[in-house]
Structures are given as C-alpha cells and as structure tokens.
C-alpha cells in the first residue's frame, strides 16, 4: 500500500461525496416525495432529486457549499501504513481535490477570516481516528456545510428532565432551526457522556445509514418517536410547509455522570454527503457511493 494510493483514493472520496448522494439518503428522499402531502413541499423534494440526478450526471457538486472536510478513520492495528502518514496523504487529497473537482475553498482562520484557498488549515481537515483490530483501513469522508452545521445545539439538562426533557429540547431546536438547515434534514443526536462527547456522538451518528438500526431498542424507539414528532411540526421541506421536516433521526449515547444529562444536536441537510472506502493491506476493496 503506497501513500500515493491513499492520496488518490482520498481525492476520489471527495469527488464522490460531493457529486453523489448515498443510496439510503436518495431512497429516503424519494419516499418523502411519494408521501409528502404539501404541494409546495413536493416541488422542493422534486427539485432536490432533480438536482441530485443532474449532479451525478454532470459530475458537478450537488451543492455550492462543499463544506469543510471531515474524515472518520478506522485504522487496523496491523495496517501497514502509520496514522500520521495516512493523515498527511489525506491532507494532500483535500488540497488537490479542491482544485481538481473543484470544491469551494471554505476553510478560513477563525479570527482573521483569511482563506487558505485549499480547504486545509490548522486542524483541518478534521480527523476522527479509531484504532481497531485487523489489517485494513476504513475511511469515511463527510463534507459538512455551514447551513446545517450552524444549527448545532448543546443542552446540559437536569437529569430529572429525563427522556421527556430530551424530546422537548429537540423539538425546541428543530423549531428554532426552521428552514435554515435545508430540510428535510437528518438529525444527529448524542446523549450522555460529557459535553464534547455528546456532540461527537451526534456528529458520528450521522454516519449511520438511514436503513441501519441501532442495536439498542430504547434508541430505536426514541429515534422513531422523535422523527414522528419532528414531522408533525409542519415546517416541511425547505421550511415551506409540509410533512417532511426530517428524513430521520440518528442517535447514540454514552454513560454519563449521575448529576448531568448532556444532549447534543447536529443537523445534517438533505445534501447528506458521505463517501466510504475500505482499503486492505494489498489494495482498495470497496468504494461507496
């Protein structure tokens, strides 16, 4: 496994992510269109699906906001390339991909607002690294747009609020966000842990496809309930009224302090872009979508 191969696959992941939606998201959008009751809502879902199809065909980014680059790595203990080298190869992928695809250069210094021009910067791209057993490397790439990322919320609830408190907090924030995160959204929710862990769980939950169930029954139930509640608000596609305010809720949890109940929300817009590669020590096995 050469570093240049990882760099190459990195560029490919960027390209696929911004030009093709994952199958599960596309399927959900189609289902939403067939079930949406509001006429205006349907026009929005139709426009979204048409836009997605055109992006796929023309190889142009489906949304002009190609986001900031986030990588989620699962590195096998016996994978032949070191983590730091993998990261530096992927930083190169981002720099090259920004020019070649092209992506919009979005990454700036948070104080001077100066744009680096190539979507890299201090701690950017962002890497979330997990060390796992085995000798393969899994890379998930998620470009995250500002419209949905700006709709992120953290609540340090009183533990006595319980599950009802979680639902109420989510409802508040969904109403506050309205059409801003480009609904229908996927709502990532992290509960428990610490403030930062809750947010991390919320973000990471967005990686779980809409057709893949959580292994905890209580989470599955909560996801269903919250999705139904959110889709009864009437906010609808693009906030123009209708049933489909969200495509689904993705949730995860961590054990937490007895005196706290962190709840973190991270919205993902309809352009729920993510791409995935499985690399084994002798080469690339699988790339999605």
């Amino acid at each position: 496994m050469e570093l240049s191969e990882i760099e190459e696959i990195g560029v490919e992941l960027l390209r696929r992510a911004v030009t093709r939606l994952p199958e599960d998201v596309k399927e959900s959008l189609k289902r939403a269109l067939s079930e949406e009751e509001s006429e205006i809502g349907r026009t929005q879902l139709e426009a979204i699906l048409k836009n997605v199809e055109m992006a796929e065909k023309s190889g142009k980014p489906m949304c002009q906001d190609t986001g900031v680059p986030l990588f989620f790595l699962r590195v096998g203990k016996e994978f032949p390339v070191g983590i730091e080298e993998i990261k530096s190869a992927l930083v190169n992928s981002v720099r090259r991909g920004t020019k070649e695809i092209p992506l919009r250069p979005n990454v700036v210094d948070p104080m001077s607002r100066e744009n680096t021009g190539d979507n890299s910067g201090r701690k950017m791209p962002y890497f979330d690294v997990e060390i796992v057993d085995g000798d393969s490397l899994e890379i998930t790439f998620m470009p995250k747009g500002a419209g949905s990322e700006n709709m992120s919320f953290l609540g340090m609830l009183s533990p006595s609020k319980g599950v009802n408190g979680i639902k109420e907090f989510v409802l508040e924030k969904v109403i506050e966000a309205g059409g801003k995160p480009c609904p229908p959204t996927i709502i990532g929710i992290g509960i428990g842990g610490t403030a930062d862990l809750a947010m991390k769980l919320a973000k990471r939950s967005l990686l779980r496809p809409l057709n893949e169930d959580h292994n905890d029954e209580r989470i599955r139930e909560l996801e269903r309930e919250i999705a139904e509640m959110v889709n009864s608000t009437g906010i609808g596609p693009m906030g123009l009224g209708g049933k489909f305010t969200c495509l689904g809720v993705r949730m995860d949890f961590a054990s937490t302090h007895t005196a706290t109940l962190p709840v973190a929300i991270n919205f993902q817009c309809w352009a729920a872009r993510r791409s995935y590669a499985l690399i084994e020590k002798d080469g690339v096995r699988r790339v999605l979508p």
Partner: protein
Amino acid sequence: MSEFKLKTPLSEGDVDKLEVGDIVYLSGEIYTARDRAHKRAIELYESGEELPFDWNGAVIFHCGPVVIERNGNWEVVSAGPTTSSRMNDLEPKVIEYFGVRGIIGKGGMNGGTTEAMNKHKCVYFSITGGAGVLVAQAVKRVKGVYWEDLGMPEAVWVFSVEDLGPLVVTISKGRNYYLEVEKKVLSVKENLLKRWIK
C-alpha cells in the same frame, strides 16, 4: 396555486398577478447580489452616482456562485441561493431606489422588507436551498460581471437564464408565507408537547 412562465425585466402587471404559493419559471437576465453589492449600490445612489447596470424591473438573486473561466468564457459550476435574511436591512432601499421587481433567495425576509415589497410592487421567490446544479443548468450564459473587486461570491454576476425554477412565490402583496408557516408551527407546538411528552 398557479404556474407561470415569466420573462425579465418584470412589469408591474407581472407582479400583480403573482400570489403566494404560485410557481414560476423565469427566463431572461438575473443579477446576483449579496450584502456587499447591496451596500455598494445603495452608497452609489445616495451619493448621486449611477449604477453600471439597470435594475429597473430587474430580478436580484441572493447567490454567491462558483464560476470558472474556460477558454475565455465564464462557466457556472454551482449557483445555489444564500440566506436572504442577511440582506433584510438593505433590501427595502434597493427596492425603493432602483425599482427592483423580484428577489430570489432562500429562507425568506422580514416584515420590513415585506412592507417595502408591497409598497413598491416587488415579489420574493424561494428557490430550493443547496440546489446548485439545478440553477447552474438553467444559466445559459454569463452575460457579464460587475464589481469583481468584491471577490467572486460578492460580485454582481449577470446570468442569462432559461426556465429557472421551480421558484415559489413566498412574499407578495403584503403576505409573507414564511411568517405564516412559522406561526402555524408555533401554534401546534403545545399540542406536540402534550402528545409526545407525557
């Protein structure tokens, strides 16, 4: 809900027939403008100077496009709408000073802008957020660019478009569809809390 095909520049009559909820496909010229272009246009007008383009009857698009130059021609890569509320404080003047008849954007605008639109016969069209390719495909030609010194996203691009849409009329004749949806959502909130939070 009716459907219309309209050509720019828009006339008072065009605006008169549009109701909230109507769907429009637009052809002709549209001008991109974000905060800084709005500010500059207002400053020029207030110091008695002329704009380098004619916004009478024009349609302004809240958009910061990605444009590349290929063989001496401009090509639009992606051109979805940006959030219109950033222009809330500037738009009433732009509508009043220049006779703009249409604004395309996402997320809607506030009560002040709704009033200015009603008074000076202007409508707001919502275009699907993020649908950058859909817009790019409707742009048949980039006719020109003004104020490039503001940078690519903030400059005023003149796009020649064909059947740009679906655009949903969401502010017209004093009605603001966004505020109506918002009100409705707030009115069901209590019921939702009762139903889901026992």
